[in-house]
């Protein structure tokens, strides 16, 4: 933290590289842990139910004697994959709708009406409506998050596209008789890719947080999966009895993951 703060104003690229390194390490550790641990997140030990954190049980155990640290790691890995898929889908939606909006004025008005509609319903309510419509489950969460998170990126991409279309090299290329597809594929897309990358990274933390919230409320991943939202919803039942570790550690893990991606994306945006 100290290091990050002292190099604040002068070297945005160094900071971006630094947080990229940390986040990559975290993600690699997470993926590797899932590969090494197998299904230990679901293994029950009936002689060690609701054990507090100790040397044997690092973060304590839950009501069925399952290790909390293994479950938290599994939950973070689940969140990561759901977040990745949702951010990817959302970026694709943003890109295609932005491209559609630049085709004609009428389509543009339609897309901006769609954006206004989406932005005027509270995010969480819309997520609940979509998850309800799709009947819940992992797929429903991914689709719900993807469908609700594209507007800000679509706005950026649309502005960028409108700007690019007037650029001299695009107009020359058009005048030379290149096809629309060639212009889009060879001139515009390479220009938009960095925006898409940063946009997807900016979406990612929001996607994870919303996935966890949706699951916590009971609209998301099924209660048998070790998702962070499920762990915390379970913890709610034991709050009054003083089993604090159940409520503290899964959320802390989620916070750290979201924070590292949030920092990475804002550093990258500044560096590019």
């Amino acid at each position, binding site marked *: 933290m100290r290091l990050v703060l002292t190099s604040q104003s002068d070297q945005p690229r160094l900071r971006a590289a630094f947080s990229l390194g940390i986040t990559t390490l975290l993600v690699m550790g997470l993926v590797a842990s899932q590969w090494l641990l197998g299904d230990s997140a679901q293994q029950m030990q009936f002689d060690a139910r609701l054990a507090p954190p100790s040397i044997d049980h690092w973060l304590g155990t839950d009501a069925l004697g399952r290790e909390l640290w293994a479950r938290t790691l599994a939950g973070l890995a689940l969140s990561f994959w759901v977040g990745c898929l949702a951010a990817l889908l959302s970026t694709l939606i943003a890109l295609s709708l932005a491209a559609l909006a630049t085709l004609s004025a009428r389509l543009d008005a339609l897309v901006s009406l769609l954006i206004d509609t989406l932005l005027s319903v509270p995010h969480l309510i819309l997520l609940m409506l979509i998850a309800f419509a799709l*009947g819940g489950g992992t797929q429903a969460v991914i689709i719900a998050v993807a469908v609700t998170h594209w507007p800000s990126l679509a706005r950026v991409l649309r502005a960028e596209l409108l700007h690019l279309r007037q650029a001299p090299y695009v107009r020359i290329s058009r005048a030379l008789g290149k096809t629309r597809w060639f212009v889009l594929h060879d001139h515009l897309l390479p220009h938009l890719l960095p925006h898409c990358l940063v946009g997807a990274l900016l979406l990612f933390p929001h996607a994870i947080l919303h996935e966890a919230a949706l699951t*916590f*409320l009971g609209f998301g991943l099924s209660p048998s999966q070790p998702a962070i939202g499920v762990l915390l919803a379970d913890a709610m039942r034991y709050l009054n009895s003083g089993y604090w570790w159940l409520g503290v550690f*899964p959320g802390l893990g989620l*916070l750290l993951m979201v924070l590292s991606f949030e920092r990475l994306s804002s550093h990258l945006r500044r560096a590019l």
Partner: protein
Amino acid sequence: MRLTHLSVVLLCVALVSFGLMMVSPIDPIDAYLGPQMAQVSPEQRELIAQRWGFDESPAVQFGHWLRQLVGGDLGWSHVYNQPVSDVIGQRFQRSIALLGGAWLLSALLGFSLGVVAGAKEGSRLDKIITTYAYITASTPAFWLAILAVLLFSVMLGWTPTCCAGPAGALNQDVSFATRLHHLLLPVATLALLGIASITLHTRTRMLALMRSDVAIYAFAQGASRIDVAWRHGLRHASLPAVTLAFASLGELFGGSILVEQVFAYPGLGQATVAAGLRSDVPLLLGIALFTTLFVSVGNMIANTLYGVIDPRIRQGEL
């Protein structure tokens, strides 16, 4: 102009949410019957479907619903066994205390923290405030609420863990002080979450001002940092703060759903979750429309205030 836009958006929201309910795999008759499902014969089911108009095409059903909606009838909520408008009215009355308190607190605190942080860039206070804002921006709302319950209710015992009043007490018997006591922790949690974005935006705006020619000129005349921040900065930085405060009503409401769920506070957010989990379609649709109206009005106020604070925008100079 704005009103037509608002009604178009509301119509779109109605269409989209109705469409979503239509594609849902959950059968409305099963949801209504609940455990009595097995006692009902196919003929009776058909009667219910006919009585409620389920046998007609989705377009016709949408037309019916819209006509009733315009007439002010939102339908019947089977979870609460009351008209939907009554449920929303009662619940919103309880939620408004939570929402309003958190909203005021987060706007005021967020704005002042942003001004303080932006007034002196790179100071220790600035670093503490920005670090805090970055961390709360990434904190899951419901986790913060769980932490608050653990710390203040379970370990310290300062505040009650649940509900809007003591268990079993009738609504009218609960005194104002008890109500406030129950509201304290939810409001504080919700406010803490809302602070981050207002603080960061205000800070950015203040930084821009402190580096501007106006500030340099004032410094050259011997004004202190506090002078510049107070006389020039406050008004300059209030624009994004005010806009953001009104534009973030949707997020505030989303947060209140989670916070109400954790604190078991019987407000609109909890009703939303109950409606969704127990397939109360009319209530869910009603809440979706109601909150959309709430958020859109907030956005409209934000746009109008923009012109009041900065006359250049109203006159079209910017």
